[in-house]
């Protein structure tokens, strides 16, 4: 039994927006794998909910004419993980979302919900941040797009305005074409867990595979929101494909992060992992891009 004041089922995106306008303070319910858990804990007890779960218009993955990949937000983790376009263009995203929880959560949980709850540990988030994803939201004023770097405004907070709805996640062709990536979820067990630290790296190598043309390094749980490690990226960009480059980038990552000690892990351990995961993810990404170390 869930303590909901009311549940409104949206029939379309415009209907969802008008329901959200009619019921300010109502929460959006998609797959429910976060919201229902919070409701059970009493955090959202007695509130109104607008369910968008039945909006099939918000499901699926497609390529636009300019090569932009458009992932609709209600696409489940399982569907993202098996989607041929995702696997062809951004294989690492398919792999990352396949590490969420367990099969049941992956079948019900959605990629949109994963970034709308604003948590730093979300398995899709660091990869989307690494790929400079663009977030498209629809609200009473129409559609707007914003880079994912502006999406996360604080722990558990995203840049959704009242009555706005996430309607797509976009990854531009120039963000993925020629890049290969790797995601490491570091958790305390091999399933049914949340990352202690997540590291998603992608690289583009020079034609002769000897130089790192570009590198993007992103972390989850290294701060209150998913973040890029710009120093690490600079340490690798334009450098030869080598152990030394990887090492320099891994160590540079320490300058970009500021994790804290909590009962879940000490700052020292997190910093150790920041370096170690960058090292391993970079190596794997370079290998996948055809480089040899």
């Amino acid at each position, binding site marked *: 039994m869930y303590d909901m004041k009311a549940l409104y089922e949206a029939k379309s995106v415009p209907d969802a927006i008008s329901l959200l306008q009619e019921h300010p303070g109502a929460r959006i319910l998609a797959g429910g794998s976060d919201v229902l858990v919070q409701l059970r804990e*009493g955090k959202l*007890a007695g509130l109104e909910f607008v369910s968008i779960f039945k909006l099939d218009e918000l499901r699926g993955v497609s390529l636009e004419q300019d090569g932009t990949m458009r992932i609709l937000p209600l696409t489940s983790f399982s569907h993202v993980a098996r989607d041929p376009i995702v696997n062809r263009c951004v294989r690492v995203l398919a792999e990352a979302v396949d590490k969420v929880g367990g099969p049941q959560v992956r079948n019900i949980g959605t990629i949109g919900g994963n970034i709308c709850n604003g948590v730093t540990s979300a398995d899709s988030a660091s990869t989307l941040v690494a790929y400079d994803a663009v977030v498209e939201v629809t609200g009473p004023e129409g559609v707007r797009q914003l880079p994912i770097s502006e999406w996360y405004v604080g722990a558990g907070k995203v840049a959704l305005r009242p009555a706005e709805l996430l309607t797509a996640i976009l990854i531009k062709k120039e963000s993925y074409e020629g890049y290969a990536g790797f995601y490491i979820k570091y958790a305390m067990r091999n*399933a049914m867990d949340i990352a202690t630290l997540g590291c998603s790296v992608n690289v583009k190598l020079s034609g002769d595979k000897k130089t790192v043309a570009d590198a993007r390094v992103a972390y989850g749980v290294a701060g209150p929101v998913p973040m890029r490690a710009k120093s690490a990226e600079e340490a690798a960009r334009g450098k030869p494909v080598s152990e030394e480059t990887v090492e320099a980038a891994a160590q540079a990552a320490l300058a970009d992060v500021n994790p804290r000690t909590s009962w879940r892990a000490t700052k020292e*351990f997190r910093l150790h992992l920041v370096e170690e995961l960058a090292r391993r993810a970079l190596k794997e990404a370079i290998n996948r891009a055809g480089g040899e170390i």
Partner: protein
Amino acid sequence: MAVGVSEKRVDAFDKVTGRAKYTDDLADKSALIVKIFRSSVAHGLVKSIDTSEAEKIPGVVKIVTCFDVPDRPIPTAGHPWSLDLGHQDIADRLLLNRHVRYYGDDVAAVIAQNEIAATRAVRAIKAEYEEYPFVLDPLEAMKDGAPQLHEKFGNNILAHTSYEDGNYEEAIKEPGLLRFEKWYDTPTVQHCHIENHICYAWEEAGKVNVVSSTQIPHIVRRVVGQALGIEWGKVRIVKPYIGGGFGNKQDALYEPLCAYLSTKVGGRLVKYDMTREETFACTRVRHAIRYHITTHVRPDGTFVAGRLEAFSNQGAYASHGHGIVAKGAGAYRQLYCYRGACKGDAYTIYTNTAASGAMRAYGIPQITFALESHVDDIAKALGMEPVALRRLNMMEVGYVDPFSKNENYFDSFNQCMEKGMAYLDYEKKRKEYANQTGPVRRGVGMAIFWYNTAVWPISLESSSCRMVLNQDGSIQLQLAETEIGQGADTVFAQMASETLSIPFENVHVISSQDTDITPFGTGAYASRQTYMGGFSIKQTALLLKSRLLAYAQNVTRMPVSSLDLVDGHIVNVNSGRALLSLKDLALEAFYNTDRSEHITAESTYQAKSNAYSFGCTFAEVEVDIPLCKVKILNIVNVHDCGMLINPALAEAQVHGGMSMSIGYGMSEQLLYDPKTGRPLNDNLLDYKLSTTMDHPHLEAQFVENYEPTSAYGTKALGEPPATSPAAALRNAILHATGVALDAAPMNPHRLFARFREEGLV
């Protein structure tokens, strides 16, 4: 032959199709819902409770607080009652407590028409506390001036027992002895049975009736009677199928409160269904025990003197109390032979954490982790092979426990270790992995254990059985020993089928216990079901058989001495000829108009024996040092639990225990906030129960030595599989990395800290 065969579980089809009924399935949907208002301080006195807002919430029927309940302390431990005052369980909690002793203690109960109203009411209750200082660590709690939890127990010491075999101070004077001394820590863990504790109660026919997810219906009947101050015959407990217990449900948990609450609403049906968070924080946990072990050893590895000091964290209430650490101290004393002396001191200490109670293997996982780690530390220091050091010192064949009279009849340890070594190719790998460098290293380790079967002579051991003949020659079989998922009903049916010589499918086990109907017995714990049930089943089956043959004498006109029951037929033993089927005999007995008799048998067997169960674990790990992670590559448990009644079920039992011990060793720990005493990870996400993805193949092997004291040659297997894997994994990590981990769980946090100390990361 029904014994020794992997018969299908008698409950298999009902369980996989969802037909099997559990407590919540049985509760009438009209039940009122109970929710508990819990203390938000770790230690204090409730000064006042304001329920006015809560009572206004629609659907709230009644709120009962700690100011309303009788001042009648309850002993919750699931032990048989003792007529000896000095041996009775400690009664130290009330139905609801004004003096709250842990974060989450029971303060008030809401009874409402539905769950939402009850939950809202709990949120609307306000309590004022006089806050007391609290203490979470047992060694801190023992100090003078520490916060006191219970008036009668100075320095929070619930109990302190000691023993000394030989003269320790004299023994350690032997010249040339090497001294090894260390502290070992084990964590607070929780049982994590799938079905949270749930019970419901109502009054009817002058009785308080409780249906509960419990392992021990007859014991719960007594405790509910004591708690409510009513005659035990006015309490009826029903135990349906349960979703695991692992010892947590070997306690009266919320049955007394639920029964009491029903009496406060005119006997209406009230149901209390715990949340997972409450199950973690407010039922029972495994005692976290800190050990200080000192061993004096001759240079050749011979153990001369052993010294154990054990400090057991009891938590807020006594529950099973000192029995747990005392059992471990007893195991310490016997697992190895000390030529000079062995001295032990065990303390059980109250702290402001969840009450510790029974949990699978009752103190032995703790001591096994500590002692088997210690033995490997000695082996490493002496440059000896761990197996060789154990062979030199382990309990000798022929050893007799002076207290229980248990005897080590066979060379079980060596037989088990041989199998374990062969499976793992252990000796080869010991050498192969000896001098590794690099970030990823492999190692192999092992550990041994012994375990008692049932609880004699500490407590009563009896089992009662009833067999009732049906018209078709089949029987109903009833025992108070409970099916808790382990497969007890199936092996009971196999044993009855064996002794009566009737088909397995003709034994209908009544799985559910109802204390108004089921013969008396104490329930599922102490790895006692097969051993104890075996006695009463065999005795009762022979009694039933004698009655069947006596009746057959009338029908066949043959003397009983010439008759036997073979394969469901009455047989003339002289000719070997089947004279009539048991079905025909039953029809005669039921419907003969001249001489009708319903043939039944019922008997009690009181056991005054116990039996040593033995075994070991061998494990192989791969340690990724920079990632501070351990991958278990191979693991095998080998048990001598006597004869296997059902090999497939025995194997499954071992798998479950190994899994539990893998979690114990590698990942599980219930944490408390040192600032508030609040449990930090009381849910299945943050409490790292290991998943199937964290397990390798679990190999279970057996050595079958017929246990001479046992009705069917069996001895303990329920709990033993959960004892030795954690220590074997620890020793494998030691072998791989050279780093000794002296505290479980050996999770990445601990590995990081230790690897950093050793300069590996």
